């Protein structure tokens, strides 16, 4: 695992990707710090973090797009498979290298509250709690990006997919709140979601019956709930979206709550997508 980690890290800094990644994040955090804290004279660095979330749309694809897709394209995946390393070790080596690159701007950011404290009172616990949550949020998005990179040989496709997924999760909550909270709207929204899951299962397994079964399995209980107790569905779609939104979790940290559930959520997302990446690589051996 260490060999993979070292190689990945070196390749990030041999190329331009790591520098662009770090420059982007520091640029936007810098602009917001200047605007809120220096110009606006607000003593809350966490407000900056609350507002620069969009930067992940740009930087996560930069970091993750080539991480696995490029191995396939260069045929170096054969080398990785033939090394006496488990797939989990390979994936973890790569993931930790990306986290290390991400930790650099976070480390730089950690100095900002110290600098700001020279000019006023800073609530350090909330601020550093928020930076920690910001790091975990980024780590979760990087895990998602890595998984998407393992699905294709083309790094541009991986980048676009990752951009789209981060974009959707960024706007997911605001979009969901546009839908009315009525039971009927929730039913429709859930049905669309279930249809998408069923379609995804169809595409993944190339078995239409399998997709249809999944769709039926999820849709029938939903309809049953709608008929028997429609009150349960009221506002439920928003609640679901709010709970699975990677971006939404950050706000409780910014409000000064060290949200353990949020941490568990981020760690679960990381675990899930690292696991899925391992499975995606394993699957290629079985195809």
């Amino acid at each position, binding site marked *: 695992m*260490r*060999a*993979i980690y*070292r*190689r990945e890290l*070196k*390749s990030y800094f*041999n*190329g331009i990707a790591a520098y662009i990644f770090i420059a982007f994040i520091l640029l936007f955090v810098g602009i917001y710090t200047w605007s809120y804290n220096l110009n606006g004279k607000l003593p809350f660095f966490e407000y900056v973090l609350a507002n620069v979330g969009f930067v992940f749309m740009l930087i996560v694809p930069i970091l993750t797009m080539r991480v696995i897709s490029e191995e396939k394209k*260069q*045929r*170096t*995946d*054969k*080398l990785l*498979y*033939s*090394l*006496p*390393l*488990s797939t989990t070790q390979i994936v973890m080596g790569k993931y930790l290298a990306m986290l290390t690159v991400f930790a650099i701007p976070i480390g730089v950011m950690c100095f900002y509250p110290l600098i700001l404290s020279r000019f006023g009172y800073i609530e350090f616990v909330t601020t550093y709690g928020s930076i920690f949550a910001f790091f975990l949020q980024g780590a979760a998005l990087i895990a998602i990006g890595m998984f998407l990179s393992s699905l294709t040989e083309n790094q541009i496709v991986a980048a676009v997919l990752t951009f789209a997924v981060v974009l959707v999760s960024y706007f997911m909550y605001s979009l969901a709140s546009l839908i009315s909270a009525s039971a009927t709207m929730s039913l429709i929204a859930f049905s669309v979601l279930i249809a998408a899951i069923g379609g995804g299962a169809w595409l993944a397994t190339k078995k239409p019956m399998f997709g249809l079964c999944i769709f039926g399995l999820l849709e029938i209980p939903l309809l049953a709930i709608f008929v028997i107790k429609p009150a349960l569905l009221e506002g439920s779609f928003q609640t679901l979206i709010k709970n699975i939104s990677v971006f939404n979790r950050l706000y409780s940290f910014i409000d000064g709550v060290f949200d353990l559930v949020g941490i568990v959520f981020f760690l679960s997302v990381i675990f899930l997508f690292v696991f899925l990446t391992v499975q995606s690589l394993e699957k290629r*051996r*079985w*195809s």
Partner: protein
Amino acid sequence: MIEVKNLSKNYGSHTAVKDLSFTVESGQVYGFLGPNGAGKSTTMNIITGCLAATQGQVLIDGYDIFDNPKEAKKKIGYLPELPPVYPDMSVYEYLLFVARAKGVAKADIKAQVDAVMAKTGISDVSRRIIKVLSKGYRQRVGIAQALLGDPETIILDEPMVGLDPKQIIEMRELIRQLGTDHTVILSSHILSEISAICDRVMIISKGRLVAVDTPENLARVGEEKRILRLTVKGDADAVKEAVCSVDGVSEAELTSSEDGCVSLEIGMSGDTDCREAIFYRLADAKMPILAMQINKVSLEDIFLDLTSDKAEDETEVQEVEADEGDIQA
């Protein structure tokens, strides 16, 4: 020692490898020979753990590649069809990475990297970025990578493809050297490469193993099937009768007869050369021989024979005969 037992691999409904079983003994150079798409690469990918088999077992020194991959993979160095190199790394950096990933002890890494570079003749390009290297050098870097960790067995998938004639000769020499202290399995669809380097040849066709033997033995099988082509002036039946009465003639077949001349194909059995006997016999019978030609069945023919379907085979042979008939006429 590598044992492959009842290996099968399906891609969807297509069967790439079917019920393949063989054993690779230590210290020999094995050649995997077969036409394109015969399942050579698939088999090699399975042996090295890059691909999972649908069925069957691969044991490397007793370690199952599926159940005990770490131990098994340590005993194998693999060069896939395309050398698995990172283009943006230097040769030296790349080899250091592979050595670390293979778990070579820290103290030995530098010495071992230097040793494999010397062995493969890439010491003078060690600081170059792999991207700028020629195909031949990349191939060598690929082999150097396979040698790291000092594995017992080196598996090379089509190591000569894309090399120029000089590089092919160098590569052949390198593989021969490797064969002195490693077990080497290499694949190719070119027979002359295999017969030049290998101690044993495994011919594979449509995912099945059709022959395993030394190149000499395979060639001997060919010699035993020597064919004599004759054109004789005379009556067809009389010629055939006369020829068949000679010792050592196993069969005689009429291929064409024109203007009082007959062409025959005579199968000779054993080591006896019965050309002289046939000459005198026909001379006694006043049937002059107009043409006589001996045809050794080459390794190439055996290869084609073994790797093509029976039906296809027969039509091919007939076509060849028809062509020759035209020339003779």
